């Protein structure tokens, strides 16, 4: 008997608990009116979700009070907008009132006659958003990639959406279902054969100059350059492995890239291209002194040697970036370069398979101030 009593109590506890949960469950309702006809979610802004729902209001002649409330969901009350669709010229929204201490508002709507009015209610809903991820597969020779774009909808808003039309952009809406606490990943677009260019970049400001002295192997950042539109999102890159599968090459975060602009996606590091840089010589000249014999200004003549080795079985093009701050002039620089700005030299070096090349940079840094104006030895923007 005690056991039965115990289970009875337990049963009622569960009923009460379930009742509480149901009572707490999210609701967005328009009092005394049919529920929403159609609902859309716009994720163009990804972080902020705009929900738009269509409802049919049965309006009586005169002023109608329409109660819109939202419990256990986070709606920005100042974002709520009601637009009349059927009779926008005759229906007037007179005022909006927010009752104290409630997640609700009341519209006063005037109608000249009894009628049914289709309206759109729009609002910004929190705790639901979209994020974008990409999956790219390059061909075995790394000339093109196939790109899949996925939208991930994360719904923690407290609201269940049944058949919601979802817009990531204005072009291709799709209908989906998303419940509270649910996450859903949807393939939204596929592009094939996008040309890519593989890039190796060695920047003297960022990379160690003597990789052989480094305790771990030094890799040169390697990336794919491509022209295609991206939203900000994680891109996972794979390559056809010629064995019927793929190899994961690495991942990077794409930034927003408009159509026609260029993106760089880093895949990983190349450890088969080795760059070593040494300063071979430093000489000073044109030393000027003040009356106290203190040095005021001088020139420096520098010799740097950069050795590049391609240990791969295939040719590569290496972008080598050197920075010379201040006022400078070349004396003898053994390879062609382009100036990215006054201090940044970019060398595009083609290295055949197993080839080793040496770049000798002989240049003069002019008018180096020692004292009062030494801050002008570097050029500010």
């Amino acid at each position, binding site marked *: 008997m005690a056991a039965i009593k115990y289970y009875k109590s337990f049963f009622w506890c569960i009923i009460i608990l379930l009742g509480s949960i149901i009572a707490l469950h999210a609701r967005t309702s328009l009092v005394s009116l049919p529920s929403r006809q159609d609902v859309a979610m716009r994720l163009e802004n990804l972080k902020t979700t705009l929900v738009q729902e269509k409802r049919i209001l049965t309006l009586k002649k005169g002023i109608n009070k329409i109660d819109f409330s939202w419990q256990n969901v986070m709606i920005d009350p100042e974002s709520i907008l009601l637009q009349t669709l059927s009779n926008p010229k005759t229906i007037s929204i007179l005022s909006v009132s927010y009752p104290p201490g409630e997640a609700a508002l009341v519209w006063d709507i005037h109608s000249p006659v009894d009628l049914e009015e289709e309206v759109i209610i729009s609002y910004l809903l929190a705790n639901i958003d979209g994020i974008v991820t990409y999956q790219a597969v390059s061909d075995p020779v790394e000339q093109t990639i196939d790109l899949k774009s996925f939208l*991930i909808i994360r719904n923690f808003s407290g609201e269940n959406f049944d058949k919601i039309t979802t817009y990531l952009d204005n072009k291709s809406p799709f209908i989906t279902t998303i419940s509270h606490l*649910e*996450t859903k990943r*949807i393939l939204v677009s596929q592009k094939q054969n996008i040309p890519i260019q593989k890039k190796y970049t060695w920047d003297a400001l960022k990379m160690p100059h003597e990789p052989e002295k480094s305790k771990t*192997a030094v890799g040169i950042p390697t990336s794919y350059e491509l022209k295609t539109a991206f939203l900000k999102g*994680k891109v996972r890159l794979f390559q056809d492995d010629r064995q019927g599968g793929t190899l994961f090459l*690495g*991942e990077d975060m794409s930034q927003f890239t408009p159509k026609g602009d260029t993106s760089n996606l880093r895949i990983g*590091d190349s450890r088969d291209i080795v760059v070593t840089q040494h300063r071979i010589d430093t000489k000073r000249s044109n030393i000027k002194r003040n009356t106290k014999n203190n040095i005021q200004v001088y020139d420096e003549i520098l010799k740097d040697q950069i050795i590049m080795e391609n*240990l791969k079985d295939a040719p590569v093009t290496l972008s080598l970036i050197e920075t010379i701050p201040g006022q400078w002039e070349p004396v003898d620089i053994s390879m062609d370069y382009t100036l990215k700005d006054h201090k940044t030299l970019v060398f595009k070096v083609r290295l055949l398979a197993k080839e080793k090349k040496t770049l000798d940079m002989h240049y003069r840094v002019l008018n180096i101030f020692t004292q009062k104006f030494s801050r002008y030895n570097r050029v500010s923007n």
Partner: protein
Amino acid sequence: MRKKTIYLILFAMVISLLPVLPAVAKIDLVTLTDRESVQTTIYNKADLTLVRDKRVLNFVKGMNLLQFSWANTKIDPTSLSLEMKKESDKIDVVDITYPPGAKDVGIWRIKADQACRVPVEITYFTSGISWKSYYIALLSEDQKTCSLKGYVKVTNLSGEDYNNAQTRLVVGKINILDKISHLASLQYPYGRPEHISAESDLRNIYKKGMRKLDAAQPMMAMESAMAAPKPKAIQKQGLSEYFLYTIEGTETIPNGWTKRLLSFKADTVKVNNIYKYEADRFGENVVRFSTFTNTLENNLGETPLPGGEIKVFHSIDKNGKLAFVGSDTTKYIPVEKKAELNLGNTSNVKIIPKVMAYAKKNIIFDNKGNVSGFDEVKTYEIQLSNFTGMSSTIEYTKNLDSSHFNISAMSHPDEFEKTDQDTIKFTIHLSPNSHQSIGFTLTTLRGERRWQQ
């Protein structure tokens, strides 16, 4: 007690039930599928393994639900991908849902134009499986060559058993934004929007692993009945910036177990022994380095060698007696590049640098009569002694405190090298049990002397 981990269940359902994915009442269970084959691609620089799981599924016409669950594993749910290997024009993977209230579960909606039986491939990332390489080098009696064996060791702590899996190992450094172990541990696969508001275990693992290995025995027995057993070969292939090692056949590595495989064996690798003295790096010690080059002439050179620990032994006699020489950790060694092993300090080679003469010259004064600069002149004698009983290469490197210097009166000008603006090096070959001295004069310009042109 852990429960079984990865499950794949295929449901067929009428479309009208779709809005209530989590409440899967009235769903007909069509098939409970097993793996056809599985491939693991294990990365050693990131705690990441790409698993490719092949199965054959029966789809009914209309909407199908495929539930994939992975409790007690370290799978990254954001990496889950499903691909049809046939009939991909008739079957559409609509979406994947991570239902509320159910951790480690994903449900794919798959729309089929007709009933069909299709091979599919499910891929995902998991953490917890790792591999490393290591080497054993056995120096010959004359220490001019060594035999080198490379091993790979795979450890599975992923929570999942991978039976008879094709195993591939990746050498290289990929760019990765998030740790897979972190992604696997998240309560919600993609997170959530910013809110506005013991020993017995080991025994169990051991028993479980033994069962898995026993289960794999019949296949191994069949293979061994057909041919004499031999170590598995490892195929090597370059892809993008990485090298892919594919282990011959399949491997069963139960969760909690480690397996070691021979990666390569090179019998005669030419070794150079170099004794280095560089006070800035090694203090006042002579350090022994052994070098070898990753080339075809050394029976290596087909692929880069992944970084790993290398233990060096010395063969003392022909009866197999060995002495441990030392160990070091090598970096990744590209093809045709030299591996340099630091085998520690040695007393068999002595390098004693001495300043035999010292002078201050060309002293200059400023307007007030104070010393403003001078030349510091040091005459060095570096005494080298080789007690190794073998010809040895000795490298003496000196890092200078200024780039304003000159060297004169060199005894070994042909062995001299200025490696950069403030580093000099002498490389000398010494015959067994011999001595030599290097002499040179170093003049360093101090103070205002540095500015005199």
